[in-house]
């Protein structure tokens, strides 16, 4: 086993006393102090995250858009320059290889951001699928560090260290910008359910940016945040996590995310990898609904965790938990689960088998948390 990869901010994390954890081959900060306090800071003030483990892949060339329309399920060439989109890459059989954010950085250039655990799979698939297209797929995993500032104070913090037009920067858009004197890609994206920014920089600039943001956020409660609170934040916001809510066994339609599949795209004569299988999955979802992704809120204190069985009043299995955690915002355990359609109606009560005990939980619509706008 090779030693874990370190981000450009590794020394800083250790100086801050972070508890580190192995994540997809990277040594990443899990938490700096209390994950609950980090979570609440992002909801009420702001949090600073090192996300340099995410996998950036640049696709460029005259047919970059056509290649991505062929390789991904989204209608990527229809994306405006300096806009971003959530999409997926599927196998021929429709199974989800990864969920992605694609940023259009120029007329002929896109940055695909893959999950750390799938970056190689995505890179390999894009490279293979590029054959015959006038486009180049470039592994840029080592070219970028990624820092996120998330929370209601994120806008003010960033405004104090950049002249970039933040009011003009919409959600799911990006800008080339100068932040604290460094040239970066500044994107209004995130994974926390809050307003916030993601900053793609040269790794050599990451420490300077982290320190500048830390200083800028000192008066308004910015704290460094680890992957632990990132997980509870995204869970409250009802956002899927690859390996939990998404995997190769499921199609986007099984995951309730059929809307990301754009059968209406016109490039390549409408053909794209997985189309046939996905058309079938879409039709099946219409006539024979698969298990539905729902939210569960527990009345008790025990936490329904990933892989626990969801059961009905008679104790018969009707689903399984994909993610669960104590929700700092709601003050009670929450979970996401795939359950049989017959039990998926919000307001209903089912139970979770928590290590042999059936704990009653209420079915609710996702997300658990939505910020006021």
């Amino acid at each position, binding site marked *: 086993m090779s030693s874990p990869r370190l981000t450009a901010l590794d020394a800083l994390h250790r100086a801050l006393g972070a*508890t580190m954890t192995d994540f997809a081959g990277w040594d990443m900060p899990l*938490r700096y102090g*209390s*994950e609950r306090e980090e979570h609440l800071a992002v909801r009420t003030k702001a949090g600073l995250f090192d996300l340099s483990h995410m996998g950036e892949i640049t696709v460029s060339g005259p047919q970059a858009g056509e290649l991505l329309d062929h390789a991904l399920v989204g209608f990527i060439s229809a994306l405006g320059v300096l806009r971003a989109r959530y999409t997926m890459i599927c196998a021929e059989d429709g199974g989800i290889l990864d969920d992605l954010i694609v940023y259009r950085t120029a007329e002929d250039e896109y940055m695909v951001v893959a999950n750390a655990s799938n970056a190689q799979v995505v890179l390999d698939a894009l490279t293979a699928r590029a054959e015959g297209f006038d486009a180049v797929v470039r592994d840029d995993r080592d070219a970028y560090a990624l820092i996120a500032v998330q929370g209601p104070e994120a806008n003010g913090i960033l405004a104090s260290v950049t002249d970039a037009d933040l009011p003009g920067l919409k959600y799911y858009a990006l800008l080339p910008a100068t932040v604290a004197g460094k040239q970066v890609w500044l994107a209004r994206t995130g994974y926390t359910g809050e307003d916030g920014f993601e900053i793609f920089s040269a790794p050599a600039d990451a420490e300077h940016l982290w320190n500048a943001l830390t200083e800028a956020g000192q008066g308004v409660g910015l704290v460094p945040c680890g992957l*632990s609170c990132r997980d*509870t934040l995204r869970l409250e916001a009802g956002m899927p996590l690859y390996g939990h809510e998404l995997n190769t066994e499921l199609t986007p339609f099984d995951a309730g995310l059929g809307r990301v599949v754009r059968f209406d795209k016109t490039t390549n004569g409408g053909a794209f990898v997985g189309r046939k299988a996905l058309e079938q999955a879409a039709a099946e979802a219409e006539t024979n609904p698969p298990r539905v992704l729902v939210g569960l809120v527990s009345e008790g*204190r025990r*936490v329904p965790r990933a892989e626990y069985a969801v059961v009905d009043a008679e104790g018969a299995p009707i689903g399984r938990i994909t993610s669960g*955690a104590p929700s700092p915002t709601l003050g009670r355990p929450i979970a996401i689960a795939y359950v049989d359609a017959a039990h998926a109606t919000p307001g209903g009560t089912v139970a979770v088998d928590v*290590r042999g005990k059936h704990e009653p939980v209420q079915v609710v619509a996702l997300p658990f948390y939505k910020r006021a706008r």
Partner: protein
Amino acid sequence: MSNPQHLQFSKEHEWLTAAEGGVSTIGITAHAADALGDIVYVQLPEVGDTVTAGETCGELESTKSVSDLYSPATGEVVEVNQAVIDEPALVNSAPFEGGWLFKVRLDGEPADLLSADEYTALTGG
């Protein structure tokens, strides 16, 4: 947080006090509490239960995981700390004081325990 000199420690990261009238107080160490992260649920043995040294007698649930609670001593549970059941975060904030877990009327002298210095060495200082 340093490990109090007046306590004894198990390799499974519990502490216990010297017996007073045959009764010892038991908790988990600051090192263990910190490793678990924010503790959100504590399941303790009940008063009258018999616990056995080295065997599980409850569970501690944190944001990320569930851990078995082991007893460092054998005997009868004579009191449980209702305060940590109501407010599990006490285990994080005051592991050696208000975050104690339960009291046991000892059935013999507990074995295989470590001094504070030995436990500190075990956990890497």
